[in-house]
């Protein structure tokens, strides 16, 4: 299967103007507000942004797993031909795991502590593929081998507390990809792991997705991870997308001041700085009119742009086929 159907035909997942709200005593908080995002089939998309910008809520919204009292209040999520927001709960449950799977930040916490890891994989085959126990177990062992668990025959009999965090994340990948879904959402899959293990798990994630032709939505705040893995990047800020572009050209030529700030904040070897670069200020609530980044934006002050504070900039095309949401980039 090809991996680069970038932007060409109808994308696998298309999110348009998504809004997910959580009611609070001080009125609804819009965790996601006007997010646009597409993923082609087999594509690896990095969804980047700082803590609290709505990355995880976006992932949960796609799966219909936003916990009450939060709910999706606007926009559209189309998965192939299906409108995910209009699906009844039973049909949504049938899609989860089968066509869209997800792995979480805490690999060990995501495994049921009282079940052998082999059984947790085999369960998918027994439940969803009507396989017998022996055959399902054999498939589980084969999957554990594919994700690089040493001695998978005996490893399958281990309980989650007996394996390391890196191995647990490998098991989670095996479970998530067991039914060969078309889309895998990985929410900060390596944040809880040792740096040495992170690279291995990421390489595995890419290898498995490429082999199965599974598209990957990689939710992360780590631009290094994105550079390593993704085909395309969408940068989120305060609940919506501010810039999206193929990974190489985004790193080569970031157009949104926030993306520029993120890239400048990465420490580089050989550089000797007293203090790491930072973006001053903190994320504003997505309730103001105008650009949500305006208050922290160095470009705006440099160019003396007034409209930033009053008018929300639209997403406009970048020369490389990407999009950017910035008045300064347009002028």
């Amino acid at each position, binding site marked *: 299967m090809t991996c680069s159907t970038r932007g060409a035909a109808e994308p696998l997942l298309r999110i348009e103007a998504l809004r997910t709200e959580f009611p609070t005593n001080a009125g609804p908080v819009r965790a996601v507000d006007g997010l646009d995002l597409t993923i082609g089939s087999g594509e690896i998309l990095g969804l980047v942004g700082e803590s609290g910008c709505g990355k995880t809520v976006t992932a949960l919204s796609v*799966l219909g797993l936003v916990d009450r009292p939060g709910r999706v209040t606007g926009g559209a999520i189309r998965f192939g031909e299906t409108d995910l927001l209009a699906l009844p709960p039973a049909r949504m*449950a049938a899609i989860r*795991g089968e066509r869209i799977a*997800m792995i979480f930040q805490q690999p060990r916490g*995501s*495994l049921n*502590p009282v079940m052998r890891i082999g059984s947790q994989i085999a369960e998918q085959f027994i439940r969803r593929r009507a396989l017998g126990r022996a055959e399902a177990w054999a498939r589980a062992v084969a999957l554990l081998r594919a994700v690089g668990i040493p001695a998978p025959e005996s490893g399958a009999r281990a*309980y*989650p507390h007996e394996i390391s965090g890196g191995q647990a994340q490998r098991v*989670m990948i095996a479970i998530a990809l067991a039914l060969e879904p078309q889309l895998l959402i990985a929410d900060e899959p390596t944040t809880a792991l040792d740096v040495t293990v992170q690279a291995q798990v990421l390489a595995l994630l890419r290898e498995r997705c490429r082999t199965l032709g599974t598209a990957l939505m990689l939710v992360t705040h780590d631009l290094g991870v994105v550079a390593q893995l993704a085909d395309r990047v969408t940068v989120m800020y305060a609940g919506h997308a501010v810039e999206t572009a193929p990974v190489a050209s985004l790193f080569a030529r970031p157009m949104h001041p926030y993306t520029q700030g993120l890239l400048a904040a990465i420490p580089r070897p050989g550089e000797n700085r007293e203090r790491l670069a930072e973006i001053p200020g903190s994320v504003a609530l997505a309730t103001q009119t105008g650009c949500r980044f305006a208050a922290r934006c160095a470009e705006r002050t440099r160019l003396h742009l007034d409209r930033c504070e009053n008018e929300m900039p639209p997403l406009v095309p970048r020369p490389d086929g990407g999009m950017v949401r910035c008045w300064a980039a347009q002028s």
Partner: protein
Amino acid sequence: MSFTTAEPSLLALPAAAAGSRRATLHALLHNRTAWIGGGVLLLIIFAAAFAPWIVPYDPYRVDPIVRLQPPSLAHLFGTDALGRDIFSRIVYGTRLFLLICAIAASIAASIGVTLGLLAGSGPAWLDMLIMRLIDVLLAFPYILLVLAVIAILGPSLWTAMVAVGIAGIPGYARLVRAEVLSVRSLEYVEAMRAAGAGVWRIRLGTILPNVVSPLIVYGTFATPLAVLAAAALSFLGLGAQPPAAEWGAMLVNARTLMFTAWWTVAAPGMAIFVAILSLNLLGNALRDVLDPRSR
């Protein structure tokens, strides 16, 4: 006899020890209390299973010639006012003891666990409905609730077991609900949802197995209470009816003879004491082993 139910919150343990079944078994085998409690319980089960081969006399055969014999080699625990061999009746009594344990505990546990699971993992209105019903049950003093159920169903050993079972529901329901609430927002439950598991799949396959260990511990404390209550009902004439070889019933029939033939009272009293003690010891040992805080 005391009729207070053990407070569930005291026994609500984190399910942290779950998953390490082998370690649990290992710790249990090195626990002297567990050996004593479990040993006596096994002895009771053995006696119940092989009662006809153990007893020297038919426990129901009346023989006025040997009435009120003190303990001797012929009659180990003596005979009662009708000349029945008390040892034989005690041995047969193990069957009713285990029956009461099984019936009362399974009624209380099955209904209580189901209600607790539904309340803890279901929609808010269902939680409200179930827990208010449980509060109603709890508002009655334990023995009064049991008596009320018997008043409705009529006195017999079976209704006594059902009544004691019903009175045990609130404890289980509250314990399970509390445990479910702490488990249901954990990551692996979320992961199961993301894998497309249905509501019942998650309740029975993921949440329930993770709340089992505190449940086992609670069961070993709640069950002896149920047995005591059933014995008390027999003592009040509302449970097992004569001539049943039930320890509580034997106790009440012999109570007028307490000062003339002490063995008629001592034997069933000791039997109840030892049996309950064994369950409590086992419960203590299980709690020590399953509770990570006491290690």
